């Protein structure tokens, strides 16, 4: 039978080898951009020639923070907003690890805003993938610090009255050495950005503007994943072009592209250097397991 032949020939999805198959399908709603961001991460990791076994993931709380739990690597699923502080300790404790943080707009920019800007200031070598869906998904659709002015959420029944954060610009101002933003439909650009972020020896921040059809879409006349990604396509403007446009023209637009790529001395390396130069000591790794040191 031809059907049997098809079955035996079945090859696996290219990202499946990195996932904890026993936990799939994941909890994300149909059309949620989290899974896409994860695929682009793997693609970027392969392009950056980073050894998957050397990756450690850290996340906080929220839908996007559930991502590391599906990945077959060491992962730390921490408290709300605190992922970057845990990641700072993990990276300092073992600078050989490639530490990646998955976070969201609420996690990174509201409750965890302070940790975000300080990690950027230190330029510690972390790769932060911030999936910005402009809403609190896990708790059921409350507005977030990136919800556009006038957008609706369960805690903004009359529309958000606040000016949202521009996350990429925030991290640039705080001192991040690689910063980019793309939407969840810019798969190839995202993968390329993640490659650069992983290869940057410093604080890298990749903002993924992503769709939450369930909570953001439903309350904002973008009911399906397709409607949401169409809106991303229509509203995205590359940074080079946006730089030449007026503020007025940019209302409602999503500026995508590379915001900064400016390597500078990295924090955990500076700490190691300090030990060596001032005290003549090499920084110890995994010393809790040593008998004498």
């Amino acid at each position, binding site marked *: 039978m031809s059907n049997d032949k098809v079955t035996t020939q079945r090859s696996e999805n290219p990202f499946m080898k990195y996932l904890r198959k026993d936990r799939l*399908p994941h909890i994300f709603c149909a*059309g949620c951009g989290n899974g896409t961001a994860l695929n682009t991460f793997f693609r970027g990791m392969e392009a950056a020639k980073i050894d998957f076994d050397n990756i450690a993931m850290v996340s906080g709380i929220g839908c996007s923070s559930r991502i590391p739990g599906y990945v077959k690597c060491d992962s730390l699923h921490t408290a709300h907003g605190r992922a970057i502080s845990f990641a700072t300790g993990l990276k300092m404790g073992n600078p050989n690890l490639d530490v990646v943080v998955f976070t969201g707009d609420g996690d990174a920019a509201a409750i965890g805003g302070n940790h975000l800007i300080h990690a950027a200031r230190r330029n510690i070598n972390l790769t932060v993938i911030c999936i910005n869906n402009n809403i609190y998904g896990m708790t059921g659709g409350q507005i977030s610090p990136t919800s556009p002015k006038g957008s609706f959420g369960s805690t903004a029944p009359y529309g958000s009255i606040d000016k949202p954060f521009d996350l990429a610009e925030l991290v640039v101002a705080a001192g991040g050495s690689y910063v980019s933003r793309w939407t*969840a439909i810019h798969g190839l650009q995202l993968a390329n950005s993640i490659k650069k972020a992983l290869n940057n020896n410093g604080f890298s921040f990749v903002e993924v503007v992503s769709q939450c059809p369930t909570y953001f879409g439903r309350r904002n006349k973008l009911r399906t994943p397709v409607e949401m990604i169409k809106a991303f396509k229509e509203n995205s403007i590359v940074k080079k072009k946006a730089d030449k446009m007026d503020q007025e023209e940019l209302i409602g637009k999503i500026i995508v592209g590379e915001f900064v790529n400016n390597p500078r001395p990295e924090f955990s390396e500076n700490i190691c250097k300090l030990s060596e130069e001032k005290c003549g000591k090499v920084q110890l790794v995994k010393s809790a397991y040593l008998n004498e040191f």
Partner: protein
Amino acid sequence: MIIVNPDLCKGCDICIESCPRHVYAKSEKLNKKGVYLPYLDNEKKCRKCHLCELLCPDQAITVEEEDD
């Protein structure tokens, strides 16, 4: 050949929307999980750009490089 894994697909239609060559179409019947799966309406047009594979949020699509 393109494989859509019915156990993982949640029927979001992103593959249908984003395929530059309109390879996918939406089935008219719900499957037993309550999902309108995409089907290959025009597989011959596929140029194996793997974009659907990359964008599929549920790791449900496999685009095989070699056809028999």
